[in-house]
């Protein structure tokens, strides 16, 4: 596969290295001369293009016309959006992955059709929430394009579901109870599986169903105290 990477910072450079190791062809665009020279020492200049990756002619010089994938990982969100849009609109690149630097800009990526995004801050925050004992509802993963959210809920002592069987739980529409983690071990949730206090259940659900699920599983939790990922990274109230 030919992957065009725009932005030669830590993310871009390491992505390039990994892809080369896996046997893919890459091109990397970097606009800071000092950084470009540094990368050239390690990677060689064959796959490197010096210039502003939001300029259409620079993208063309780097071979965007035949790219199977474009990875926009500069430090500027507006630049990453622009690169993604140009890749799709003008060059019909089949796959585009973009980096979100500021989680507040996530809704703009979504609005402008840049679906495959990665935000280090949001990922880090989710991980922190996962490790904080106070959180009974944790957002684990967002598959934006597929419109699937993966969440984890803790079954408390006084949960109405402690001691019930999976088949007897009336879940909100579209929610799939996929797995149960008990004492650190994960198992597939079957209809005949009994849910015990202290269990963690993993659910797959469409975006926007979190609140409903919380009402079913954690009725004792004040809904406004539960931070949802969909609210965490949006500037919309």
């Amino acid at each position: 596969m030919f992957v065009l990477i725009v932005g030669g910072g830590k993310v871009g450079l390491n992505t390039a290295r990994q892809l080369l190791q896996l046997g893919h062809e890459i091109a990397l665009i970097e606009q800071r001369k000092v950084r470009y020279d540094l990368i050239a020492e390690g990677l060689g200049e064959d796959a490197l293009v010096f210039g502003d990756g939001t300029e259409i002619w620079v993208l063309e010089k780097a071979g965007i016309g035949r790219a199977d994938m474009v990875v926009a990982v500069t430090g500027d969100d507006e630049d990453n959006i622009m690169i993604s849009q140009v890749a799709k609109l003008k060059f019909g690149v089949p796959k585009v992955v973009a980096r979100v630097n500021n989680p507040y800009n996530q809704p703009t990526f979504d609005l402008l059709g840049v679906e495959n995004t990665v935000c280090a801050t949001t990922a880090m925050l989710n991980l922190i929430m996962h490790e904080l004992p106070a959180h009974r509802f944790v957002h684990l993963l967002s598959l934006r394009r597929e419109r699937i959210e993966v969440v984890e809920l803790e079954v408390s002592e006084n949960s109405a579901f402690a001691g019930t069987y999976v088949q007897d739980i009336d879940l909100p529409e579209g929610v799939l109870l996929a797995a149960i983690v008990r004492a650190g071990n994960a198992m597939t949730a079957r209809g005949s599986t009994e849910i015990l206090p202290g269990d963690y259940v993993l659910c797959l659900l469409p975006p926007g169903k979190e609140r409903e699920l919380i009402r079913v599983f954690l009725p004792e939790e004040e809904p406004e105290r539960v931070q949802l990922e969909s609210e965490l990274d949006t500037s919309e109230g």
Partner: protein
Amino acid sequence: MHVVIAGCGRVGSGLARDLVTQGFEVSIVDESPEAFHLLGDEFPGEFVVGRALDWEVLREAGIEDAAAFVACTDGDNTNIVIAQIAQKKYGIGCVVARVYDPLRAELFAQAGIRTVCPTRDVRVSLLDAVRACKITPGEG
């Protein structure tokens, strides 16, 4: 009629004053608090400090009730992105963006943004100015 302008540089501030003179209600956004000096002491419109990429800042500037949005920050990419926010999120029909790069200006004009490309316009003006000297190719 309310108009929101993003970018209070020489162009944005001048445009703000022009629009006010023509009877529009104007608010202008810039990330630098010092930028409002360019508007002069008498500017009756609103000045909002913040990044135009931030939806909250745009709302503070009244984008929800705006009839027009003008993106003239110093960044082409910022202008194109915020113009699309105005268009797609807030449904503004009259969205104008300054885009220096002719290629990007053309690409996003096709996507429904009224792009104004100073580079292209200056080229035309310069060519006209040269032609005004009434010289012809092939001579001297």
